[in-house]
């Protein structure tokens, strides 16, 4: 083997991409040629260093949550496709627009699906539940999850001051495996709501807080738990406020979350200020 032939094969040699007999030929040449051996060492070191030191980026949990949500949404969109041409048309637009349009369509579809489900069970909280679920799905779109991104309750809680006329409890639930992600303002049922965002693994948990209105007394007979297309909605009350918890997290974990939220919120409000 000539030096030129060896040099031509060195990268494939380092990458183990040569036939066995070619590998042997290169190996034999490297044993006898110092300059090719140096070239080989340089390539091998570069490759090793790249593998050892270059950053690998794990997909962020928020991205995984968004993808799971959009897969679930796609599922629903496909089911309704025969009756509406909108999703098909949206797909012919540019990717970002089709994604946005599809998400809006899907949010509407799921919203109305949720609405339909709730109508059968209860009339009073129907609009609210549909709204809450649509907001949850909207929040998973790029840049919509949090207005204030912080894992510290002392950043998140004061942020709501002056932005919304209620001060929701923002307990830390890290120890229970539900890290705080942040907060945002949202509109639900025509009123501003304070949303506190937690995560569990790849699942986003949105807690929508609003004042317990006079409607709420009528709604006390309403179901406090709704399942829809893999999403779970749980309603609760605390200290003159009403909340909806929404997530695609499994039921038992979500029940744990609600228990911890209730417990920590009560503890917080019992403390002297």
């Amino acid at each position, binding site marked *: 083997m000539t030096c030129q032939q060896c040099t031509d094969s*060195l*990268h*494939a040699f380092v*990458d183990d*991409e040569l036939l066995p007999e070619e590998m042997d030929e290169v190996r034999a040449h490297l044993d006898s040629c110092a300059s090719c051996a140096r070239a080989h060492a*340089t*390539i091998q*070191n*570069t*490759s090793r*260093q*790249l*593998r050892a*030191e*270059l*950053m*690998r*980026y*794990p*997909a*962020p949990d*928020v*991205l*995984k949550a*968004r*993808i799971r949500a*959009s*897969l679930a949404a*796609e*599922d629903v969109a*496909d089911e309704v496709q025969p009756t509406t041409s909108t999703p098909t048309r949206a*797909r012919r637009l*540019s*990717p*970002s627009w089709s*994604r946005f349009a*599809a998400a809006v369509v899907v949010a509407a579809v799921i919203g109305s699906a949720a609405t339909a489900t709730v109508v059968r069970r209860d009339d009073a909280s129907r609009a609210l539940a549909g709204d809450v679920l649509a907001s949850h799905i909207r929040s998973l779109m*790029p*840049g919509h999850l949090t207005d204030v991104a912080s894992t510290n309750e002392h950043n998140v809680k004061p942020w709501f001051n002056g932005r919304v006329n209620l001060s929701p409890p923002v307990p830390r639930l890290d120890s229970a495996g539900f890290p705080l992600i942040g907060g945002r303002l949202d509109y639900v049922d025509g009123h501003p709501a304070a949303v506190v965002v937690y995560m569990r693994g790849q699942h986003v948990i949105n807690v929508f807080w609003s004042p317990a209105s006079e409607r709420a007394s009528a709604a006390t007979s309403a179901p406090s738990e709704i399942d829809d297309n893999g999403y779970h909605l749980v309603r609760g009350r605390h200290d003159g406020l009403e909340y909806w918890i929404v997530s695609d997290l499994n039921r038992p974990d979500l029940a744990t979350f609600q228990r911890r939220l209730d417990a920590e919120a009560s503890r917080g409000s019992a403390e002297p200020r």
Partner: protein
Amino acid sequence: MSRPNARRFEEVVLPHLDEAYTLARYLVRDEHDAQDIVQDATLRALRHFEGFRDGDARAWLLTIVRNCCFTHRKRHRVDRSSVSLTDDVVAGIVGSRATDQLAIESSERERLHAAVMTLPPELREVIVLRELNDLSYREISDVVGIPMGTVMSRLSRARERLAGALGAGAKEAS
């Protein structure tokens, strides 16, 4: 798409999200764009999943992500021109850094990262696919859509440049 198919998609394709995201991060160099692209690519993959038989799901997803990244670059022509400008500027900074105090402070890892990020995209992608995603030449050839010989020549060009960047840094540091 039927539900069993959707479940199979989750089992077969979603485990490769980390690698897909890594590739997108290196190709578009922006966290938010990379997230959008991977989400978009995953949805595209889902829509064409019926046509996907028992092949290499990882290479298949990476192909879609790679194509979405390049479409993204083309679509953002303004960005692209500013990106290529940035490339030059960054390359200039990296070059002058070597003769600068900064070079001593910046770790080897950062220098390596900067060197990879300033490679032209067609060299950057083969480096990421080979060294980080550990794809074979055959798989890279499928993902990028180039002959295997071209895979090898691009890899060798990319590594030569990176070895140069590393060598310059090492000399400076000593």
